[in-house]
């Protein structure tokens, strides 16, 4: 049992956990990729959002308490606070028809 725990500990260490570094998310043609972002619950994390479209987009989420404009063809960091386990939808405010995503804290 102990060994399994240790092993899983190593595996966790090998796969960078959400809190360890920015999570890369791309916005292209007004769509987020990945559109579902998994983060560790109860720990802050950072989404590095690269906007590959020519125009600006606002990463907007009431659930995540974030509104951040990322200019066209640039990258911006979106800070995600420590979240209770759950699903937190977000959207690109200027293109809500296509730019939809969700942060899953688990």
């Amino acid at each position, binding site marked *: 049992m102990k060994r399994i725990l240790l092993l899983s500990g190593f595996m966790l260490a090998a796969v960078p956990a959400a809190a360890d570094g920015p999570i890369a998310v791309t916005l292209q043609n007004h769509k987020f990729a990945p559109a579902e972002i998994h983060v560790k619950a109860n720990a802050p994390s950072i989404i590095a959002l690269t906007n590959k479209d020519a*125009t600006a987009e606002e990463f907007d989420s009431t659930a995540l*308490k974030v509104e951040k404009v990322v200019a066209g063809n640039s990258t911006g960091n979106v800070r995600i606070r420590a979240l209770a386990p759950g699903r937190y939808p977000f959207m690109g405010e200027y293109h809500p028809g296509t730019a939809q995503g969700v942060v899953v804290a688990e």
Partner: protein
Amino acid sequence: MLSALLIVFREVIEAGLIVGIVLAATQGVPRRGRAVSGGVAAGVLGACLVAAFAGELAALFQGNGQELFNASILLLAVTMLTWHNVWMASHGREMALELKAAGHEVVTGKRTLAALGVVVGVAVLREGSEVVLFLYGIAAQGGTSNAALLAGGALGLVAGAAVSALMYFGLLTIPAGRLFQVTSGLITLLAAGMAAQAVLFLQNGGYINAMTGTVWNTSWLLKEDSIPGRLLHTLVGYVEAPDGAQILAYLGTILAILLLMRVAGKPAPRPRAQPAE
């Protein structure tokens, strides 16, 4: 077209409600039109600049430029709103006693019109920059739906302005004697909501890391994203799931303004000159 209408409508009422309150608070003050329209013009210009240099702004302060900028202008507005209320509390009463209403309004106008002009400017800049970015995005995309989207935007502008006007004329139905009490109450809540919003930006910039846990959640009762939720968010700072730091900023601002108003509202101490009333 509907999406353009909605987004512009939302941003316009958010700024417009603040303009409506400022107009009501300065009812009867000469040349207030100049301060308010000056604030709107400066806000629109600022919004265009912020939109044009969104990338550059965001890159400042290790990528926290946007958050720091938003927090700063919100706190500037909070300061101006506080100053207006405190000034009104300290001078409103003696002016009313000594000079009657007309004189009171003239002096008030001179002193705090500029401060309220700044508040209007901040409100228009914040909401306006989003509208500019959104409309610019539409224009840059080109295509046939362009005209429809821009028409939607124009309709949203008109509808937002109409709601704001409704707010203003609604406030004006309050009898003059009570109007300033009502507007000073509204301004206090406006300032508190802005302070809480500033805290949010400071948290998102990583400058405040304490008390970030959600304290309560009333999204089942009223969604912050709904139109009524948005209106209440702008007017009284409604947040569906506030965290500890936001609540502290909100209550602290109300407390500070009320305290300062009370201190300022007391007649200057003149020992033995006057018997107690």
